[in-house]
């Protein structure tokens, strides 16, 4: 081989040849392992009496996202040895837990994010049914988690069925089912996929304007559905929004709860604003207000401008009051400052 050709040949081997060889090696390895594990009925009885199947379905593994890339020992290191190393697991939960770090070596970022999740917090507290990697993604049959997008809510629904059902009936869920559009939020858009925060805390609740706002201030996205992007700014300038902003910035936990998006619109069951069942429809609004303001009279909901900015048509009195001060304040302060300056000028001139 000439000196000139050496580099391209080496590079071609590294980037093309090696993976092929590796894939070949992986396939050989799978064949070897499945000669035992491909047979149904290969089980392990755990000290707890529970039985863990050790059967791996060849077809579903080969179809899986890892099927063409990974062999068995990629996830089960050390198992090329015969007999296999002992795996001291007293029950199924411990058996599953012993595989938990398997994904880390390749998917380090998502693995560490998941360590911050409410699921891992539950696991650490001893809740053995809280999910980790394989519970959502599957083990030997791992597929892309978001194809189709409805698959995501299906995955979550295996534990959170009530929420998933409510979501399915919501404006988001229905639109997703009809269009499969990436515009529509699925579970993981609001809750995140790996660093899933505790939704029961105040922190999460107070973040909801930001969560909803991330799509509802997106001009291009909202235009497609004829929705206003002013909902976020009009919320912030109102009493609830101001309070929420200030509470979010304070160190001390607030005693009084202040309404955020989900308090009026709902959480998983958010309806189209104009739907008959919508909490924010004019005729349902009083009932929604009284959740936090018991005894609110029928006039009370009109104190909220329904995300409208004051204009001569919507809330003319509010608009006129704002205009009045927009004129009065500069006139007043300008006039007084002018008097001050005239006075000072006279002092200087007369000196």
């Amino acid at each position: 081989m000439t000196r000139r050709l050496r580099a391209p040949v080496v590079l071609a081997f590294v980037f093309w040849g090696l993976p092929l060889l590796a894939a070949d090696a992986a396939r050989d390895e799978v064949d070897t392992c499945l000669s035992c594990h491909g047979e149904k009925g290969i089980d392990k009885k755990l000290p707890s009496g529970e039985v863990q199947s050790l059967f791996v379905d060849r077809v579903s593994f080969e179809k899986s996202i890892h099927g063409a890339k990974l062999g068995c020992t990629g996830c089960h290191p050390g198992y090329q040895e015969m007999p296999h190393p002992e795996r001291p697991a007293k029950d199924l939960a411990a058996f599953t837990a012993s595989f938990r770090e398997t994904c880390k070596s390749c998917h380090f970022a998502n693995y560490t994010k998941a360590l911050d999740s409410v699921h891992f917090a539950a696991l650490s507290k001893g809740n053995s049914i809280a999910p980790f990697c394989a519970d959502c993604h599957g083990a030997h049959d791992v597929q892309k988690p978001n194809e189709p997008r409805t698959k995501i809510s299906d995955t979550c629904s295996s534990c959170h069925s009530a929420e998933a059902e409510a979501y399915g009936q919501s404006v988001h869920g229905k639109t997703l089912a009809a269009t499969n559009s990436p515009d529509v939020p699925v579970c993981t858009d609001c809750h995140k996929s790996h660093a899933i925060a505790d939704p029961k805390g105040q922190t999460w609740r107070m973040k909801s304007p930001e969560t909803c706002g991330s799509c509802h201030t997106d001009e291009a996205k909202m235009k497609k559905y004829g929705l206003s992007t002013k909902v976020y700014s009009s919320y912030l300038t109102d009493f609830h929004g101001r309070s929420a902003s200030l509470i979010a910035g304070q160190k001390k936990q607030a005693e009084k709860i202040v309404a955020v998006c989900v308090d009026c619109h709902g959480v998983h069951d958010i309806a189209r604003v104009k739907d008959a069942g919508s909490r924010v429809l004019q005729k349902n609004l009083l009932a929604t207000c009284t959740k936090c303001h018991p005894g609110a009279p029928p006039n009370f909901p009109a104190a909220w401008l329904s995300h409208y900015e004051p204009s001569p048509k919507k809330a003319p009195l509010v608009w006129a009051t704002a205009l009045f001060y927009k004129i009065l304040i500069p006139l007043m302060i300008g006039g007084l400052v002018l008097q001050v300056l005239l006075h000072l000028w006279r002092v200087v001139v007369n000196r």
Partner: protein
Amino acid sequence: MTEAVVRFSKKQRVEHLVVMLLFMTLALTGFPQKFYETRWAAFIVNAIGGLDRVRFLHRMAGLLFSVATIFHIVLITLLALMRRAGMTMVPTRRDFSDAIQQISWYLGLAKEPAQFDRYDYRQKFEYWGMLIGSLVMVVTGLILYLPLLFTRFFPGEFVPVAQVAHSNEGLMAFLVVITWHIYNAHLSPDVFPFDTCIFTGKISVERMHHEHPLELARVTGEAADASPGHGAAPGGSAPPA
């Protein structure tokens, strides 16, 4: 020590002090709510100990301020009806001509500054501005404090109207105080650094001669000096003989 006369009664001095302290408290606890997005708003809220406490203090100070305002209005009304009070704060036609003359003098169009009685046109303007502004703040503040009660009798839209009015009227009052009032009470060359009159109740005869010659003349029975007027007047610092 220069000769001094009593200008403000104890009641007036206490009233000023109370309003001053309440005004500061209300501004400190009110502006973070108006300018909720700023870092200084978050700083003040944290320094006070959270939004709930900020609102509690604002409402308590507001209630006290309402009591002080209503007390003042009731008292001056009664005194006026009983003809026990001088009508020194009531704007008259003379105040308009005074204003025109004073401004002409500032501009060099008049030879003499205006001569004032107990309160000059600027003080009357500030007093009535403060009184009307206080009423706006009290009424809108109560609406915002008790929206459930208020909307029992009035349309809901009045609540955001009250919010806009309260927020803007408060800002205007604050701006008037930090420009106009602070200038007149502290920064003006006539009183720099501090006009203590409203705290001690006493004012020097010399200042009376310059600033309120008509009142001085009324009280002492002497005719007003021919060249009194403002401290800014040429050579105007000699006390009356």
